């Protein structure tokens, strides 16, 4: 293993490592445009030139393999001079349109110019004008050839990661320009990633175009709920300028590096899935009666739904459960937990409904058919089915509350009129079982809907309790490989909606069975203590990249 010295610090790395990788290990950042750890090495931008002792010329750090005894200087006068001159070349034909460029603020040309450039312009020649300004090259991406520095990261991405090869660099010399292959469009399912890896403003996001300046954005780490892969993401949102996107808070999602899940990438479906956060949300509890419904009755599904205050809505839900309790009819109630819920919410629901009340919880919910691919996207479009299976698998206790294999689904039992009440979390029964079944359910059972969005089911339900979406709550999701990953609350739930934990805990309190744990971290500790699959996991051990379930193989979905 070669040992080398970078800026006076010694580091030992495996043979074949390049200088830039060794420097990254030491926390020394060498400027880069074309180098990206997830792509092959091109070595064409030259900004990473460093001084290597005993070498006649400066070497590019991204493509020079380390050797034993190598002494590298990343901050010597010679290196800094070279960096400045490389920048001068790169900026020779670069337009000065930072004010209208969406990349401004997160642009490496701007950053490195301020760090290493700051030269007096001496370019007197005519700038080479590329063809006309920004043009869409696909459904999600805009290309501005003038701004391109020809680092070829995007070309390598389409060749190596998406394997679709839509992009190429055409012509030669200072006429070289990036473009899509004639007759094609950049329309692969991962196209949005080229915007992330573009170090300048050549490739920008059509969805984010002109929406906000990047310095307005706040960022919060999370996990994409679009499918069971659980790609790590950052939620970029703006709370103090509601006029920017007509009141929407989330501006965009960006992938967050996780070597075990998505590396640097995410799919476009997930990337633009954020729009539901601020659209068609439920913002107030609704009920079919303007006060409490008469006990033990099911209001007509055709009656008008009225807004309720939270206190009254929760009281009504608690009273219906209590009534069933005193009449010994809890066996005729059912709960449909959802794989959209966090592990914490599922656990609290299990504790309250299954363990304390003895209400049947059915984790086997029909799936909407969807397709995945062999890279990141999975066919299962819910983020926590694995976690739901782990939490609800082990309570097949003497009451037999988890229906075995071929027993009828709860929803079917409800439609058959075997149930008196049904609590549905997040599911849209209409989409899953069809309009007719959902209508029958709503006519025969008292239907409580706990969910974030206005769906056909929420319109059928007798009592609607609006809950928070993933960006508005703390918790964990368990991805398809059994990796438990944290989601962090970016902002408060829409006023009028409440977190799922809060709703279940409030219901428990009203039923006189308050939980000792309320915050997500406390609930997760309780999960770790009582669910074998989560043994030994805490928010601290999960860290930024999550951790696998203790019994990752044992749990099957």
């Amino acid at each position, binding site marked *: 293993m070669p040992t080398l010295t970078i800026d006076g610090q010694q580091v030992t790395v495996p043979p074949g490592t390049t200088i830039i990788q060794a420097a990254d290990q030491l926390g020394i950042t060498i400027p880069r445009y074309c180098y990206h750890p997830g792509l092959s090495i091109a070595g064409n931008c030259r900004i990473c030139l460093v001084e290597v002792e005993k070498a006649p010329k400066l070497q590019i750090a991204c493509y020079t393999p380390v050797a034993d005894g190598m002494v590298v200087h990343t901050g010597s006068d010679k290196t800094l001079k070279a960096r400045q001159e490389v920048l001068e070349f790169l900026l020779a034909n670069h337009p000065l349109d930072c004010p209208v460029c969406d990349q401004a603020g997160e642009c490496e040309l701007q950053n490195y110019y301020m760090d290493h450039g700051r030269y007096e312009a001496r370019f007197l020649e005519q700038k080479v004008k590329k063809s006309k300004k920004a043009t869409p090259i696909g459904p999600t991406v805009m290309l501005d050839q003038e701004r391109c520095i020809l680092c070829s990261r995007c070309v390598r991405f389409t060749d190596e990661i998406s394997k679709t090869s839509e992009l190429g660099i055409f012509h030669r010399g200072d006429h070289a320009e990036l473009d899509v292959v004639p007759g094609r469009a950049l329309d692969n399912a991962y196209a949005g990633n080229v915007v992330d890896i573009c170090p300048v403003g050549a490739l920008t996001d059509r969805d984010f175009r002109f929406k906000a300046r990047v310095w307005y954005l706040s960022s919060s780490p999370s996990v994409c709920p679009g499918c069971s892969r659980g790609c790590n993401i950052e939620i970029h949102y703006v709370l103090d300028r*509601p006029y920017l996107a007509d009141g929407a808070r989330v501006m965009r999602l960006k992938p967050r590096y996780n070597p075990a899940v998505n590396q640097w990438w995410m799919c476009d479906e997930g990337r633009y899935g954020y729009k539901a956060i601020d659209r068609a949300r439920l913002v107030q509890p609704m009920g079919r009666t303007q*006060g409490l419904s008469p006990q033990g009755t099911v209001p007509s599904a055709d009656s008008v739904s009225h807004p309720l205050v939270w206190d009254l809505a929760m009281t009504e839900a608690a009273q219906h459960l209590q009534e069933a309790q005193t009449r010994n009819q809890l066996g005729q109630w059912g709960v449909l937990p959802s794989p959209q819920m966090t592990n914490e919410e599922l656990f609290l629901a299990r504790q309250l409904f299954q363990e304390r009340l003895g209400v049947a919880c059915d984790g086997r919910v029909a799936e909407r058919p969807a397709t995945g691919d062999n890279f990141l996207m999975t066919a299962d479009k819910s983020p926590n089915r694995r976690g739901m299976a782990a939490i609800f698998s082990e309570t097949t206790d003497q009451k037999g509350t988890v229906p075995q294999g071929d027993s009828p689904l709860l929803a079917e039992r409800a439609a058959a009129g075997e149930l008196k009440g049904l609590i549905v979390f997040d599911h849209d029964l209409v989409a899953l079982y069809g309009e007719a079944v959902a209508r029958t359910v709503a006519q025969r059972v008292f239907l409580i809907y706990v969910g974030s969005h206005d769906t056909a089911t929420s319109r059928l339900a007798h009592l609607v309790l609006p809950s928070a979406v993933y960006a508005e709550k703390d918790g964990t999701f368990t991805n398809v490989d059994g990796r438990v990953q944290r989601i962090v609350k970016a902002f408060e739930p829409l006023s009028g909606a*409440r977190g799922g934990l809060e709703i279940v805990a409030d219901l428990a309190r009203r039923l006189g069975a308050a939980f000792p744990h309320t915050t997500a971290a406390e609930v997760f500790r309780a999960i770790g203590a009582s669910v074998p699959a989560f043994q030994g996991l805490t928010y601290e051990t999960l860290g930024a990249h999550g951790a696998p379930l203790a019994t990752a193989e044992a749990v099957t979905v």
Partner: protein
Amino acid sequence: MIRKRELTFWERMYLPEIIRGVALTSRHFVRNLAIHTLHAVGLAKHRSAAVTYQYPEQPRPLAPRLRTRHRLTLREDGTPRCVACMMCETVCPARCITIVAGEHPDPNIEKYPTRFDIDLGVCIYCGYCVEACPEDAIRMDTQILDIAAYSRAEMKLDLHELLNPSLRKPVKACSLPFPHRCAVRGDPHAAGPEQPLHGPIFIGGDVTRAAGMEDQAQQARQIEAPHPVPLPSGEREKGEGRGNG
């Protein structure tokens, strides 16, 4: 602590100081009267005397660099020079500027504001927006100082008033030749959401702000605290145990 100066004997005599003050006032009166008289007959033009401006009939002349009501400058085609880079919005310490960007029909310009409001009730006239502008698109040189309104909403300048400084609310007709969020034409988004748009919003969970909801809260309060759910024997320990774990 400020110590009060002891009056001298001369000052305590009272009358001499009174006479001194009246003399000072009289000197200015006589001087102004004399110089204005000389001005009237065309003499001593280089000497100035105190004047009273009969505002608002006679406005006082302003220094050309005085920061006054804002305006947005125009391109030759009548669209704003502003490219909606939001530098002014970013630098504004009072946060009185609101910009929403749109796609300019000319691809070489790319970006322009479809909404540009300045809330003069909030503006502190620091002039940072003019300093920050890379396009010379905003200036504070209209020499308009008398900004009065009957409501806070009227203190806001929109695109119409900013592009045409002679306009002031209520603007009756819109003649801006480019797409924009226009309150004059009845665009509901022209003023934009002050709060996120999500239908009726009730702050907090239990605060009753909608009409008729006080009764519901009352009704809910009157309901007795529910009895604890009797758990089957042996279940309580199990349930609690899990919970406490």
